[in-house]
């Protein structure tokens, strides 16, 4: 349990350097930013109404300053460097030192005042996706407000009217700024008990994000429409995505927001869950759909809840199989089934160190530790207790342990399967497979003739 003071002193944070004049900054809330990609423990509110805070995967919640009953936040839009996974750093745009930006948590009915400072090279705005607010606070540059020019600070002020899961993202040069990684999560907790919003023990949130970063470089190509090569949750790719660590018996809620260019069907192993809410709010109980895979479309938010009563390491991932891969060549020809004998020597005579790969599938890729271009993640990564996981991208693990302490979100390590509950290799005698004799030819059996073909059957 940390409060804001501990959070500020304990975590690695940086005070904002002055590209905005210190005099102007004097009356703004202090600028808090982070540069480490760890999952921060939930931020327990120390002022205003209480709520059960969320945990942002590989992220954090933005602290606020209470000013005469108004929660004041300070967001700064700036270029950042984000480690997508160990071994690869990307030059992105984000908020307060990271992409995505910090999660903003408020309570239904809170008046919020958001100071947005722009340190990008171009103008920006912030749109509060899904929220009810005065039109002038909607953040659509040119339509509802003038753009926030570089160096300026704008103030958004409104009341958080509706409980639920929301997002925030730029609405100026939106394609570029979203492609560069600017987005963040917004959670409005219900005031007191809500008939449609249950209380849960563990509440996780993340956003999906996709990049096209040329292997060997670090800045995404913003004009890509379809051919992305890095699929991330909160700008992290497996094995850089922290696991969701819960106690057996906890009620778990997972909130997902999608700001990529395509939908993502999220699949949880081992459980059925209930979709309890969308961006529009909590769904009526009778209308809640049970699912094992929920499809989150572009611009949608989804809340899912379940009771974590099965222990184990349960995979949780987008079910588009190429979204669980790190950068791969989309034009590489398939070598499966091709006889490559004799060719390997010929090719390594011309290009030393080149090996023929892929003629038996791609699993060997993870086995061979081969040098790659700089700042590039291998296509498949991750080591589990029983071997390579051969995963990347939007893949993480839900770890349910009976001995996970309440409020403890640290990684408990791998699950020790109880005896007799694991798939094993059969080493005994294999029974002889009886071959079924073919049916006897029967003059009564209809002979099928193709119409029109004059063929002789013998």
């Amino acid at each position, binding site marked *: 349990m940390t409060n804001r003071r501990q959070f500020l002193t304990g975590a690695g944070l940086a005070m904002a350097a002055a590209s905005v004049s210190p005099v102007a900054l004097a009356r703004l809330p202090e600028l808090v930013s982070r540069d480490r990609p760890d999952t921060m423990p939930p931020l327990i509110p120390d002022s205003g109404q209480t709520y059960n805070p969320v945990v942002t995967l590989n992220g954090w919640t933005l602290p606020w300053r209470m000013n005469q009953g108004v929660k004041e936040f300070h967001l700064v839009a700036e270029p950042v460097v984000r480690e997508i996974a160990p071994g690869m750093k990307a030059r992105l745009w984000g908020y307060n030192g990271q992409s995505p930006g910090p999660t903003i948590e408020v309570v239904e009915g809170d008046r919020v005042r958001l100071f947005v400072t722009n340190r990008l090279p171009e103008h920006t705005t912030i749109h509060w996706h899904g929220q009810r607010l005065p039109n002038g606070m909607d953040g659509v540059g040119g339509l509802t407000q003038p753009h926030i020019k570089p160096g300026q600070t704008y103030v958004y002020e409104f009341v958080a009217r509706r409980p639920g899961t929301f997002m925030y993202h730029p609405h100026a040069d939106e394609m570029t700024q979203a492609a560069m990684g600017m987005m963040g999560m917004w959670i409005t907790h219900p005031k007191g008990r809500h008939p449609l919003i249950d209380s849960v023990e563990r509440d996780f949130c993340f956003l999906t994000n996709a990049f096209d970063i040329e292997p*060997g470089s670090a800045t995404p190509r913003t004009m890509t429409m379809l051919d992305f090569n890095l699929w991330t949750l909160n700008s992290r790719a497996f094995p850089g995505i922290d696991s969701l660590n819960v106690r057996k018996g906890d009620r778990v809620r997972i909130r997902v927001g999608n700001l990529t260019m395509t939908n993502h069907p999220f699949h949880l192993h081992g459980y059925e869950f209930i979709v309890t809410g969308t961006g529009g709010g909590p769904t009526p109980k009778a209308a809640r759909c049970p699912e094992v895979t929920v499809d989150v479309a572009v611009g949608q938010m989804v809340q899912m809840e379940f009771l974590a009563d099965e222990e184990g390491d349960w995979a949780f991932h987008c079910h588009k199989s190429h979204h669980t891969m790190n950068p791969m060549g989309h034009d*590489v020809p398939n*070598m499966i089934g091709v006889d490559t004998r004799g060719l390997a020597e010929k*090719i390594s005579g011309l290009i030393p160190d080149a090996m023929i790969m892929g003629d038996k599938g791609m699993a060997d890729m993870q086995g061979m530790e081969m040098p790659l271009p700089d700042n590039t993640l291998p296509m498949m990564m991750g080591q589990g207790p029983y071997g390579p996981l051969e995963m990347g991208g939007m893949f993480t693990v839900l770890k349910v342990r009976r001995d996970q302490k309440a409020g403890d979100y640290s990684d408990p390590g791998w699950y020790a399967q109880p005896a007799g509950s694991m798939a094993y290799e059969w080493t005994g005698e294999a029974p002889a497979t009886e071959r079924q004799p073919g049916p006897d030819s029967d003059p009564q059996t209809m002979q099928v003739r193709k119409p029109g073909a004059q063929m002789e059957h013998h």
Partner: protein
Amino acid sequence: MNQTPVPGGSLVPIALLWLLSGCASTAIDEQRAALGQFSTAQFSVKPAWLNSEIDRQQARAWVDALLQQPLAEDGAVRIALAYSPAYQALLADQAAASARITQSARLPNPVFAFERLLREGSGSRELEINRSLTLALLDLLTLPRTLQLADLRQRQLQLQTAAELLRTVTEVRQVWVQAVAARQRQEYFKQVMDAAEASAELARRMEAAGNFSRLQRAREQAFYGDAQSQQVRARLNADTTREELVRKLGLDDPQQQALKLPDHLPALPAIPQEQSKVLQAAINDRLDVQLARAELNHIAKSQGLVTVTSYVNGLQLKGERNSATGRPVQKGYELEFPLPLFDWGDARREEVHARYLAALNRTAEVGVNARSQTRQAYAAYHTAYELARHYQDEIVPLRKAIAEEMLLKYNGMLIGVFELLADARDQVGSVIGALDAQRDFWLADAALHASLLGQPPSLAGMEAQAMSVAADRGAAH
């Protein structure tokens, strides 16, 4: 009556005249010495004159020993100058031309005539014996000038043969560079072909396994086909240039089989020749300038002679001593010369005057062009050097870096093996470009050296000029 009369005069004047005419073999030796000096100074190689069978055997043995090792550029030059029959023929032609010049300055021999007439009639027998000695008097009078002109001609021949040597050496150097480069090129085209072959074979197997379409396989095979044709052409080029070198060196069958060319061209020099040093090379030392000036000199000197002989084209003095039976000895002289009545020689004078003007202008032309030629040769040399350096220092290392990065991408399965092999082909292509640039540099280097020494005209013109010396003096009677 049976005596052979001794011609008048003593032997001494004749001996003097013989000495004054000069010795043919001395002139040839002088020619050889001058050529040897020039060759040693410019190329550190002396030509050899293989006059006897023993000389030829020795030269052959020495060439065979040299051919045990890969043949370097200076080795090729040495073989060309001291062994190849083509150059030996040129040297022999030089000796012949020198002898001809010497001949052209020789006085015609005095003619001794002896006549014995017998008149036998009724009882009387008259014997008449006429002796005469004829001397070409005009030639004797013009001998000093003729000798001077012959000396000038010998000097011109020296320059001519030096130019011929320069041309031979330059050609041998260039042919050697072409042969070595073509051989290296062939190796690289083979590498390209091997890479294409691996792609084509893999594509064929992919089609057999159903992973490739016919179109995809045909495309890869087409690259292979192109690479094969290029390799075959490169092989022919290597064979052709090698045969050219063999012909230039005059090697026979067992020798050309033993001939090994080096694997690489010589490395580029660290610094190219300085332009200022090149352009300051004395104009007056150039062979072409010297040749033009010698020609002009000769014509100028011969103008006086031609003026004289255009009027009187022959003067003969004959001394006679006749004796007849019963008569006293008759002695006397005869003087003979053509009268310039129909041909008063103005055409000949006009001709020599015009030739003088022509030579004067040619000298001017050569002098003016010399600087321009040198500048041009230097520009070609410097550009070739820059290009070769550019390939060596920038393009080839860049391609190598690209190839390394492509391998890293291939390791990450970001590209397939066909792309990797195609890039390997491109990389070898850039190496071939570097080799071509290096070859062009060495060709330009030989051309620059030749240009600094002066462009060599052809030897055939020399013989025509030797003939004209005789024409200047007119036909001897």
